[in-house]
């Protein structure tokens, strides 16, 4: 019984550690963007280069994050619902037929926020926890996705 209890604690600890590794995702746009909220499927279509423009006609600039970044994996699995090789194959198909190009990658969250706050046609995904209170007013969050 006691052994079971220890196992239970270890399991909880393991799960909670995993939980800590996962991040909530915020989809952000410029404050002038007419979109106030959206859904996962639309965000997926945007970040797969299928949707080219916002409803106001402005062509979209996609901002991504480096592949090694944990938020990137979370975004790919939760929003795009693709494995890494699957996504690479997809972009090979899109890029070499000239249909679309992958998101422009930016290293730091504050760099992304700064870019989106200055670009009316930009859209990006960031780790919600890295959004500082003073940055809230400079961008607009149109979708929050909780990690699984």
């Amino acid at each position: 019984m006691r052994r079971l209890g220890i196992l239970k604690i270890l399991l909880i600890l393991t799960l909670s550690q995993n939980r800590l590794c996962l991040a909530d995702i915020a989809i952000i746009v410029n404050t002038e963007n007419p979109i106030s909220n959206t859904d996962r499927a639309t965000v997926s279509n945007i970040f797969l280069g299928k949707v080219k423009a916002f409803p106001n006609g402005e062509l979209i600039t996609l901002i991504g994050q480096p592949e090694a970044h944990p938020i990137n994996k979370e975004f790919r699995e939760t929003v795009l619902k693709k494995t890494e090789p699957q996504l690479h194959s997809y972009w090979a198909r899109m890029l070499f037929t000239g249909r679309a190009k992958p998101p422009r990658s930016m290293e730091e969250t504050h760099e992304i926020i700064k870019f989106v706050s200055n670009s009316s046609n930009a859209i990006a995904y960031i780790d919600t926890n890295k959004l500082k209170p003073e940055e809230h007013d400079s961008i607009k969050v149109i979708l929050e996705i909780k990690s699984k």
Partner: protein
Amino acid sequence: MRAWKVATPSMRSLCLKPASTMRTSLITITASLSCLASFSYAEPNIEFSGFATFAFSSSNTEYETDQGINEDWSIYPNSAVGIQSAANLNDRTRFILQIEGRGHQEIVNTGQSEFEPDIEWAFVHLQASETSSFRIGRFQNPSLMYSDVVSVSYAYLWVTPPREVYQLAPDTRIDGLSYDFQYFIKSWQLGFSIYGTTDFEQENASIEDRAGTVLSLQNDQHLFRISAAKFKLSVDTPSAIQNSPFCPTKDFGIFFGCAISAIDNNTFNQLNPDSISSISNKLSSQDMKIEFFSLGYEYDNSDLIIASELSELENASAFLHDSRAGYLTIGYRFNTLTPHLTLAKAKTTDDRSRNFNQYTHFTGLNPVYAALDDQDQNGSVSTAEAGSYLRSTNENRESATLGLRWDYAKRTALKADFTYINNFKDSNGFFSEAKDPTDKYVWIYRLAFTSAF
């Protein structure tokens, strides 16, 4: 697919200088004009990307099978290296240039095996509105689901898409104009594309009045696709046939070149040039109206992959095949390993029109008989062989391909496909060269390293 961006020097820094530092001089005017210029365009940049596939192919036969593959391992079929540059001229206009070196295996009478670098894509993409765009220039034929990325093996499952269907694709590249429309209905994307091309002429042959359309519906997991194309093909002289300069090059597609090439090598090489000329002229190789249709479906839920295409090619000439082909592929991703199985079938559908015995009353073919009889008298070919020749253009085959894709590292994969082909029904099985009629089955092996970067 990482795109390296080469930023050109920005003019904005000049424009942001405090006005007080500027003098009302020629320099100021020049700087102002520069500012206007920089505000007229989005920050220009050029992006580079590339792909490479090194494939090794072989078969268990001495004669050439698909793509000229025989028992000698060769790097030429299915290998390709490409570099693409994309220049964003402004936020609505992009220029894409792609130079590819594709491997061309020597096929009978077509010359040497080689890597032939050429411009495969060179077009301006104009995003006219949220839903509409145009492409002007050179791009790849979208007749089939993967026909515009055949060179980029990294983009799909097999080493090369199933030959049964892809050998029927009427061409690979197009010089012309394309209008693309897309519309979203909830999470479904409806796509419509229509294209027209300039007339194309090559030595002794030409393509005219070419146009096509593609209709597609897709969401996260499903893709449904219908396409149709039509054009007129003219082959002027028998020498064009005999040399088959466009087999397997991209200009007329593998199907036409190889079909004609197979005819040559089965029988026509034994005839004298005058006889060939006589036969060819009477078989009306001018303005052959060709129509192509295809249906496609793809499913991918990140684990299970299903892909299937059916295609049909029809033409008014008895000289070229009417053909129908299809395949079904099922694959499953186990992390980085994706085993897959493909069943495919292809057959000519106008065999009756080439039945030798049917034409004994058809005067249009009398010169063919006469020419062949001449040869018969010279002891080189018989009318029985003539019948054999006509029947030899009927084709049939079925195949099963077992393959494995291993995405062992980022943007790189190793692939192995083993294809078993049988059920030839006494035909040549769409092969490049005359097959040994006693062979009941043929194996083709393809191994590849492929990458996109």
